[in-house]
Every structure is written in C-alpha cells, then in structure tokens.
C-alpha cells in the first residue's frame, strides 16, 4: 500500500452494538458477523454453514446479520432486507430472516406479505412500512458500514472484527473463531 496514511481495509469498522440483529449472547466470547443479501444464492448456500457454526459453538458465539443488498443484480434484495427489518419492528427478525433464505426464489412483494401473514405479524403495518420505505435508511446504513469495513461481495464474514477471507468450511471457521476469541 502506498500514499495517503494507512487505511485498513479489512477491519470491521462498525462495532457490534444492541442495534444489531444478534443470535446468541451479547457478551459471547466470539463474534461472527455476516453481511448478506437475501436474494444472493451464495448467501443462501452459506446459511447451513452459519447455522452449523452456531450449533457447534453455542453460548460461546454471537452471530450478527447485517444487510448488504446488491440491488442491480438482485432486484428483490432491497425489499427483502426491508421486510426483515419490518419484521424486526414486530420482534420477528430471525423468523423472517430464516423464511427469506428458505424461499430465495419467491421474494416478490406479495410473497413478503404472505410470509408476514404466516409469521402472525400485523400485516397492515408491515405492508405500510415496506411500501413507504421506513427501513430504507437502515438498510443503506448497514450497506455503507459494510463498504467501509471492506465488504467485497456477499456473503462477507467477519470473525472477531476482521474480514475472513479463508475457506468457508465448518472446521476452519470454528478454529478461526476460537483462536481469536475474547478470553
């Protein structure tokens, strides 16, 4: 690297806070952050891996999901991300998150509304918030934070604060998570 003062391009620059969507204990020793896109096939393919890591590490891990919709190549990704945020407002983020990843080929607005019904959400509120773009700024905020941190596609994982460029397999990632865990 040369030129303007050192820029670390692979460090998670937006720390995990209560604002985040977190699975697991907030004070867990290890943190896995995923920047993902609900319409991205590679993210869908990584879901079982993310879940297996959570199952293996249990209370030692907190898993964080942040939005990174690539809207030019994935025309449904933005609304899908906002749908998950709208579900979050009704305390059902992870339920919607899982539903979206299980139904990546069906992310039209009517599908999103259907999922809201299935999850027992207040559908009028859900649709109104989705249509008026209440969560557009939140999704964009996630996206910008991701860009700043060196997110380079989807999914991008950060292990304990640093971008993980290694192989995406259970054993290697668990090892990496353990190695840099807080004592």
């Amino acid at each position, binding site marked *: *690297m*040369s*030129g*303007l*003062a050192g*820029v670390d*391009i*692979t460090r998670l*620059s937006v720390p995990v806070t209560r604002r985040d969507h977190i699975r697991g204990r907030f004070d867990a020793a290890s943190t896995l952050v995923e920047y993902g*896109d609900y319409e*991205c*096939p*590679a*993210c869908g393919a990584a879901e079982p891996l993310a879940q297996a890591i959570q199952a293996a590490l249990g209370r030692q891990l907190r898993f964080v999901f942040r939005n990174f919709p*690539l*809207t*030019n*190549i994935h025309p449904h990704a933005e609304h899908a991300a906002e749908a998950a945020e709208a579900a979050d407002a009704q305390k059902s983020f992870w339920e919607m998150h899982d539903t979206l990843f299980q139904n990546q080929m069906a992310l039209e607005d009517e599908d999103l509304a259907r999922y809201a019904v299935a999850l027992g959400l207040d559908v009028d509120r859900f649709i109104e918030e989705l249509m008026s773009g209440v969560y557009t700024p939140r999704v964009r905020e996630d*996206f*910008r934070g991701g*860009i*700043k*941190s*060196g*997110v*380079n*596609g*989807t*999914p991008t994982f950060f292990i304990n604060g640093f971008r993980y*460029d290694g192989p995406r397999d259970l054993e290697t990632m668990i090892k990496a998570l353990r190695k840099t865990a807080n004592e």
Partner: protein
Amino acid sequence: MYVKRRRGALPAGTPAPDFSLRSTPDQWLNLSDFRGQNVVLAFYPADWSPICGDQMTLYNEILEDFHSFNAELMGISVDGAWCHAAFARDRKLHFPLLADFEPKGAVAREYGAYRDKDGVSERALFVIDDEGIVQWSYVSPIAVNPGAGGILSALENLQNRKKKKNK
C-alpha cells in the same frame, strides 16, 4: 549486471500516465478528459468472475458515493470492448469498462499493474486527483476482491486535504 527490478504499482505522487482506450465498441475515452475531476481506476483480471463476489458489481452499488467526492469510476481489464459490453449489460453496470486490449495490457504495464505470467492485470486500485496525480494506490492479492473501503477513505482524505489547503 543491471537487473531491472519488478516495478510495483505507481505510488502516490506520480503523474498518472494518460491513455486512450475503447469504452464501447465505437467510443474512446481519454484519461486527460477528466482533468478537474477525481478518477478511480480499478484494474481487474477479467470480466465474468462469480457474481456475488464481483468487484465491479460491488462498485456499481456505490457510484453515488464516488460522485459525491467528484470522482468518476472506470474499470479496466484486458477484455475486448464487445466482451465488456456483454458483461456490463448482464450486470447492469452504470460506469465505463475500458478495454486494455491492443496492445494487450499496455496501460496496465504503465501503471505497474500487469501480471506477465497470467496475461491479465492485477486487482489494482488508483485514486487520481483532479490534476492527474496518483494520490493512492493499492494492489490486492489476485484472488481477493479488495472492496471499496480503501477507495472511499482515500477520496475522503483527498477532500479533507483540499479543504485545508483552500482555507
């Protein structure tokens, strides 16, 4: 005997070599036409890399951020203009892709961003200021998409420095 050292990417402070390259099958683009604007030059090895991790697809999502720093983004690879056109259409790219095609990789070589062995350019990023001077450069490992954080920080630093200077 004098052995020429392998030259790295042009460092900050170097005047950016001018070039004229095809941006579409019937249009040419000159770097010098962009005086007065910052330019982000993103060399990459080839069109058609796997979609979700693709560097150009990512940059396409943040063009407005580049524009907010008075910066124009250009992608460059050794692919031909027709290949670029098909790639840009497929990925819905809204910025020019330049064909460093004939002589192959000539511009990449001038910027110290060519991989002789592979016959493609590095994943090399250059931020060039409004006077045509390289202000930041970075070469990423070939398999690692460098993302955009470094570019945006460099543009931000550039803007801050300019503000200070104008005070």
